[in-house]
């Protein structure tokens, strides 16, 4: 239930001067402190009583969290505190990673995207995260600063359940790195919401396709599904099928069916499990067809 009062429960605001200080504080106050960037998920959970915290630790502005860097050899790094609107309009991202911009643009409203972040979207670990799929298919890797120093976490093993990740107390994700996109890659994100803009997804389908000489079909397709499983879902069987069989309308339909079979959605206020299952098939088919058309243009 939404608390009608505009205030947050009693808690303190902590602004550490360094990542070390932030990590130490978070580790020492496990269970009663959390890091936050834009706060767009944190504040809602605190107001609803889903979280009870004593401290909110503001990690914006700490080492490397505020910048976007692109290198034509190494790829892209997006700081954890960079608001989504900056990702949407950044010329290097629009040019080289348009799928990221496209996905971020479907999140909530313009003013919310001035606070919401890509890394926050991932760390929130909602199965409905709009940008998570793009980050998965583009091979995103999280850069984490923790009590034992720096490490990386690939997205493939990051999610443990709704709202649950491998992160532990004292861990702060400082940025997300992407390799250069494969040559000739084409992406597509199709979001089914209850209205055209701004809603949470009932189903979200992200597809990235590119020519690949190492596969039998000559192409590789990466797929990620939102809102149809406890975590963001990669339908590996559908991906394998598209690598093995010559791409045609029939192969695409078969892969879409495999994606539907992999989905394990639930009934909720946004849609029924049965509806979601069928929409996974239909939208995967549509996204694959769109990408395939562009690849063969």
């Amino acid at each position, binding site marked *: 239930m939404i*608390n009608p009062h*505009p205030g947050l429960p009693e808690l303190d605001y902590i602004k550490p001067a360094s990542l070390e200080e932030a990590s130490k504080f978070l580790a020492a106050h496990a269970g009663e402190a959390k890091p936050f960037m834009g706060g767009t998920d944190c*504040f809602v959970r605190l107001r609803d009583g889903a979280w009870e915290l004593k401290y909110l630790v503001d990690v914006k502005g700490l080492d490397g969290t505020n910048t976007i860097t692109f290198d034509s050899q190494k790829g892209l790094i997006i700081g954890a505190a960079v608001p989504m609107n900056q990702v949407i309009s950044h010329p290097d991202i629009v040019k080289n990673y348009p799928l990221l911009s496209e996905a971020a643009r479907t999140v*909530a*409203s*313009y*003013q*919310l995207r*001035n606070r919401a972040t890509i890394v926050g979207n991932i760390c929130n670990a909602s199965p409905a995260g709009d940008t998570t799929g793009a980050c998965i298919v583009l091979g995103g890797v999280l850069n984490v600063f923790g009590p034992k120093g720096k490490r990386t976490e690939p997205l493939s093993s990051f999610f443990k359940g709704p709202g649950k990740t491998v992160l532990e107390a004292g861990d702060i994700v400082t940025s997300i790195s992407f390799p250069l996109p494969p040559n000739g890659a084409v992406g597509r994100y199709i979001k089914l919401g209850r209205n055209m*803009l701004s809603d949470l997804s009932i189903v979200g389908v992200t597809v990235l396709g590119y020519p690949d000489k190492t596969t039998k079909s000559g192409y590789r397709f990466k797929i990620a599904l939102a809102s149809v499983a406890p975590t963001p879902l990669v339908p590996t069987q559908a991906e394998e099928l598209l690598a093995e069989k010559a791409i045609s309308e029939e192969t695409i339909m078969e892969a879409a069916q495999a994606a539907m079979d992999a989905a394990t959605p639930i009934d909720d206020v946004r849609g029924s499990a049965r509806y979601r299952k069928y929409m996974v098939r239909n939208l995967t088919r549509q996204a694959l067809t769109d990408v395939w058309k562009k690849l063969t243009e």
Partner: protein
Amino acid sequence: MSFHRIILTVNGSTEQVDVPGNMTLLQMLREKLALTGTKNGCAAGECGACTVLMNGEPVNSCMVLAAECDGAEIVTVEGLAQDGQLDIVQQTIIDEGGVQCGFCTPGMLISARALLNRNPSPTEAEIREALVGNLCRCTGYARIISAVKAAAEATQ
């Protein structure tokens, strides 16, 4: 609970405020600075009634902690008019009849101003997209959208 002393600019004047850690920017504006033009609607970042400009960009002030605003520049609906002259969006929303109960109007005006600042001649689709985070339960949006169009045309 400790208090945080922040210094910020609100509608052009410098303010020094002591705020508790859990106070939102929305609460600070209304309760500490008596700027009640900014409204509290959903308190969840959905309705946009609390939209203000923070360092030139619109944000939901219910989703920003006051303590985060040290050094920030805030513009609320009270700061849109300059030297007794309404902002053009304020004038056109009156002229077009885009105000009914008025609760969404302050946030709507701020979002519209922010849109025109970044895109002086938006298409209707761009206006609709820019206002998607500002809910209005009275007007059906048509007159608000025509007001933003009229404001854009008047400033060409």
